């Protein structure tokens, strides 16, 4: 999950009159994005099993963690370093999940009050639900877009994770089928829509170099965390950033 955030482009040409058509449009956006992302839960399920998880562990990740980047990161580090790499595995999935917390700050006013509702909303706060919600023109359609996208992705992602895990389980030797390369390609896909700005590209290149240089030196998982430190450094100093027209993301 991740790249659809950029794909939702039309913020809506909202006339005064037709609230019903705006709602239909919100639902259409939501379902389209939901189905597209749900579909690649298959690759997560299969790769999770290839990394040594069993079918149920893959399913628990999709049910509770429910954030594609974090889930891929966890199984990626575990595939390289095994359970001994647990601190780095948990840290990289949590660091990737931190952006969902930022999204929550933006979606909280859309969701409204009531703590049960907020817990449910937090659960499905991901790239897609946030992007579709924020792209809608009115408070009502923003709320609709958030919930429909979140629930469609949640349902699709969990069902396809189970299917993918069962397929991966049946395949056995997964590198013969190129599933390790598929994992790398999945990370490229999550990264791609985030490379629009010069600063982001510079961070990506620097992080890649740091990870490659440190892999033979540090234990598996740590090179990924060291690469994250590069981003903190560049983010705090805003090196290569846009000084004027301070955008939030």
């Amino acid at each position, binding site marked *: 999950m991740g790249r659809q955030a950029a794909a939702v482009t039309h913020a809506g040409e909202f006339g005064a009159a037709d609230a019903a058509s705006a709602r239909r449009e919100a639902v259409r956006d939501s379902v389209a994005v939901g189905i597209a992302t749900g579909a*690649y839960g*298959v690759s997560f399920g299969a790769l999770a099993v290839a990394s040594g*998880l069993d079918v149920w562990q893959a399913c628990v*990740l999709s049910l*509770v963690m429910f954030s594609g*980047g974090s889930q891929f*990161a*966890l199984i*990626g580090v*575990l595939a*390289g370093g095994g359970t001994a790499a647990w601190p780095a595995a*948990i840290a990289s*999935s*949590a660091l990737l*999940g*931190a*952006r*969902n*917390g*930022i999204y*929550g*700050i*933006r979606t909280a006013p859309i969701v409204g009050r009531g703590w049960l509702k*907020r*817990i449910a909303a937090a659960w499905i706060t991901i790239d897609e639900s946030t992007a579709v919600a924020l792209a809608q023109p009115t408070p009502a359609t923003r709320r609709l877009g958030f919930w429909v996208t979140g629930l469609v992705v949640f349902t699709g992602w969990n069902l396809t994770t189970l299917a993918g895990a069962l397929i991966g389980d049946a395949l056995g030797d997964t*590198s*013969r*089928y*190129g599933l*390790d*390369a*598929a*994992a*790398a*390609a999945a*990370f*490229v*896909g999550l*990264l*791609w829509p*985030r490379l629009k700005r010069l600063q*982001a590209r510079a*961070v*990506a290149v620097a*992080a*890649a170099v740091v*990870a*490659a240089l440190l*892999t033979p*030196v*540090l234990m*598996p998982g740590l090179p990924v965390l*060291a690469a*994250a430190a590069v*981003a*903190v450094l560049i*983010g*705090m100093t805003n090196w290569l*950033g846009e000084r004027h027209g301070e955008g939030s*993301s």
Partner: protein
Amino acid sequence: MTLWQIVILASIACAALKLAGYLVPPAVLERPAAARTADLVTVALLAALVVVQTLGAGAAIVVDARVPAVLVAIVLFALRVPFIVVVIAAAAVAAGIRAFS
């Protein structure tokens, strides 16, 4: 740590981070450095994971069938081919190279 403990701990950490967003006052976002850094950390982690997943083999760097597969994936993403198709294509490239070598 068992695999189950890692799965559960990491899941709780990610769920808690999501919930934290709903408890934090919106004023936090008025500090651009925080939002910018969060975005860039995501970019850095994903870029590092691409490298580790493409070249890593435990604590060694290995160039094998994954490299051409990822290059094909980059080209396909640049051509706006859908995610699932690219992932399958990358797997097929790696599997094909391994079958014929």
